[in-house]
């Protein structure tokens, strides 16, 4: 394992540890914390520090250490968690994240950035010194080894040295058990000692020194008398059972780190999983070929072949699902960052907001999880900045002072739905429409349905300039959010009621590696249309097809006009059916350009296809999302519907003539 490899593992692990630290901090802030929470937080910071030390990240270690000191006091109950200390720890976690990022990038963070924070942390920890002390001013240890102590190469002298590292130690030997010389067993332990340690350290730290000898000795630890009023009374001499019970668990818990209580897991390089995914993909293609071949043979010639092939495909599908599941991760890792954001933003905006999170355990492809953070953050910022009203306004509107934002995730069919609902003011359609007209996104006379108006906020160029603020008016608009969701093969829709709030729904694929597709024929070529994008397919009647000047052809369907995109023309495929009335029209829905009809020669069938990226070799191509290999060995391109849109339609869509029905289905 190379140094770089170790570093990579460390950074990956630290990111996870930070996430769990944020989660613990969120629990603390929301009063959901229990005794384990502070421990979990401590362990996360401690592990980050430990690894950081190994790589020589000194500033990171110093900062983590300062946080640990404070956490240690909170853990022991010497200090109580309050808003100030909580905020300090949050800032600490942020600073750790920054330092980690800087070390990872190899740039080094700007010097001294965390100095003020370090001072504040130290100051907070020092207030504990004036508070009643948690640890005694010192400890008296009565240590009586059992005869077998030496057999495991444990050496009392080394224990004394370890104690010395904690503070000054006075040692008194206890010779009472020393046998007469003729009965002295030279390899047994006969002496006992009393150590007086003058150090204000937690009991656990003293116990840790004796971690390995707990089974082989009698050990009594008591605070030095007279100096610690209110300290726990001296404990009776512990037998070996009791001593091991009190000493061993913290050690195990400590080393086990944040995984305690979590299901057992192994860390696997993503590249290895991707290789598996790819191999399974090849198998699926192979199986499709076999199935096709099997279908051409007379069943009498090879009885059982078809049944065997079917069992194979069943198992293969299970194998595929199993392998895909390895790549999935709970959305919790992204959701866990959100409470933090809400707290910071609401403080900054002077709003009172409660965040309710559900479905954190929902699992989704790792890549999707990672790329969800930015769009979600943006949506949440928007909800707080533009959605939720100031407390006084809410009260005036007859709502509770505190606004509620609900973030949820659930799996529905082959997709994951993530919803962000707020009970704020909702989208002010009149203002949105005025704005869109002003920007030339909508013709002045166009009549738009409510959902069409809501859709306008996703239009590029629809800046919320009227409401620019520090929080969300940073030049990144909802169009960027929509694009990033689309890049993940997902869709985003909004549903809003003026005065009572908005709901954003993100629908995402479970995985990016396979896709349910409709195979269509165009000339001698085959293309794949993602099933998720298809609304319907039909053979159009000639009288429903109209030519529109400058817009090509449109298809009238139940009173609405849908622009037609002949695929053969778009991709310059020879020998295709040019007459729409003799071909098939597949109606697809795009997020920003409404519906359109893809004109193809024929439908071949529906199948699950393995997505092979073309980008590495060809760069991004508008309208093409990738390629796949069909059962007969042919390569078929997978259409990227969103990328086809602009070529087919000239926006803005809402100005289309004779519109009798909405282009967008109303959202429920």
């Amino acid at each position, binding site marked *: 394992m190379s140094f770089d490899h*170790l570093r990579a593992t460390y950074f990956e692990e630290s990111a996870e540890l930070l996430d769990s630290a944020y989660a613990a901090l969120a629990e603390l802030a929301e009063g959901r914390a229990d005794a384990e929470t502070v421990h979990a937080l401590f362990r996360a910071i401690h*592990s980050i*520090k*430990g690894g950081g030390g190994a790589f020589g990240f000194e500033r990171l270690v110093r900062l983590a250490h300062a946080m640990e000191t404070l956490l240690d006091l909170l853990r022991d109950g010497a200090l109580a968690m309050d808003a100030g200390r909580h905020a300090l720890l949050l800032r600490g976690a942020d600073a750790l994240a920054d330092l980690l990022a800087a070390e990872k990038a190899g740039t080094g963070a700007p010097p001294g950035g965390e100095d003020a924070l370090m001072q504040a942390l130290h100051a907070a920890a020092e207030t504990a010194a004036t508070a009643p002390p948690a640890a005694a001013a010192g400890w008296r240890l009565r240590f009586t080894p059992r005869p077998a102590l030496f057999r*495991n*190469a*444990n*050496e009392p*002298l080394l224990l004394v040295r370890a104690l010395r590292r904690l503070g000054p130690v006075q040692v008194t030997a206890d010779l009472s058990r020393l046998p007469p010389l003729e009965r002295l067993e030279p390899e047994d332990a006969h002496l006992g000692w009393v150590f007086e340690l003058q150090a204000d350290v937690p009991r656990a730290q003293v116990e840790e020194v004796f971690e390995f000898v707990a089974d082989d000795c009698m050990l009594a630890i008591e605070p030095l008398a007279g100096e610690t009023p209110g300290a726990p009374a001296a404990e009776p001499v512990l037998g070996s059972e009791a001593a091991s019970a009190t000493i061993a668990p913290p050690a*195990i818990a400590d080393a086990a780190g944040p995984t305690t209580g979590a299901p057992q897991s192994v860390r696997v390089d993503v590249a290895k999983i991707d290789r598996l995914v790819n191999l399974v993909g090849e198998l699926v293609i192979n199986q499709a070929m076999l199935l096709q071949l099997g279908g051409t043979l007379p069943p009498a010639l090879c009885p059982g072949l078809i049944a065997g092939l079917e069992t194979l495909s069943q198992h293969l599908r299970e194998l595929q699902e199993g392998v895909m599941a390895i790549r999935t991760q709970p959305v919790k890792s992204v959701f866990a960052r959100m409470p933090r954001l809400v707290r910071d933003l609401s403080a900054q905006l002077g709003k009172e907001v409660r965040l309710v999170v559900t479905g954190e355990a929902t699992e989704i492809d790792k890549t999707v999880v990672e790329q969800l953070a930015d769009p979600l953050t943006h949506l949440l910022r928007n909800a707080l900045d533009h959605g939720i009203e100031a407390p006084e306004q809410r009260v005036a509107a007859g709502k509770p002072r505190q606004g509620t934002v609900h973030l949820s995730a659930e799996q529905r069919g082959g997709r994951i739905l993530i919803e962000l609902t707020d009970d704020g003011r909702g989208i002010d359609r009149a203002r949105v429409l005025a704005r869109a007209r002003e920007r030339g996104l909508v013709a002045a006379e166009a009549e738009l349905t409510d959902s069409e108006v809501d859709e306008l906020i996703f239009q590029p160029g629809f800046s919320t300039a009227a409401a620019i603020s520090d929080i969300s008016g940073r030049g990144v608009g909802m169009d960027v959010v929509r694009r990033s969701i689309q890049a993940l093969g997902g869709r985003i829709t909004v549903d809003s009621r003026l005065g009572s709030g908005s709901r954003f729904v993100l629908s995402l694929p479970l995985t990016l590696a396979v896709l349910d597709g409709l195979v269509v024929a165009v000339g001698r070529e085959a293309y794949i249309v993602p099933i998720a994008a298809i609304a319907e397919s039909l053979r159009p009647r000639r009288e429903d097809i109209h030519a529109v000047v400058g817009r090509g052809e449109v298809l009238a369907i139940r009173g609405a006009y849908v622009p037609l995109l002949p695929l053969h023309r778009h991709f310059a495929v020879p020998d295709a059916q040019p007459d729409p009335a003799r071909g098939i029209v597949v109606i697809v829905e795009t997020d920003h350009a409404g519906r359109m009809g893809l004109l193809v020669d024929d439908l071949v069938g529906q199948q699950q296809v393995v997505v092979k990226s073309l980008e590495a070799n060809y760069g991004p191509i508008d309208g093409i999302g990738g390629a796949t290999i069909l059962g007969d060995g042919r390569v078929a391109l997978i259409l990227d519907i969103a990328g086809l849109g602009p070529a087919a339609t000239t926006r803005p869509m809402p100005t289309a003539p004779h519109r009798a029905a909405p282009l967008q289905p109303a959202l429920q």
Partner: protein
Amino acid sequence: MAKRVMTVDDSRTMREMVAFTLRKAGFEVSEAEDGRKALAALQAAPVDVVITDLNMPNMDGVALIRALRADARMRAVPILMLTTESEAAKKAEGRSAGATGWLVKPFDPEKLIDVVKRVAG
């Protein structure tokens, strides 16, 4: 003189993580991939601390600990077991075979250094 530590583990990753951590802390580290190789190497050149995995081919950790304790020159060498939490029974076996202490996988580098210093003096 730098203290010498041997890490015995059939996982190269684990050996290298231990070695990396301890070298960084100033120890001299050698590696062996199973009990038999460790025993041969230690009989040729003893070290100050042995850190061993328990589950290994050829000669497992417990057998290695027994063999080391049976060798007069290595009776007093501190031996640390590097175990997973699920190996409680094995750990007890290792203890009675003469192991000095234990560490839990995955280990915390700081704790590893701390423990090795504690048992090595």
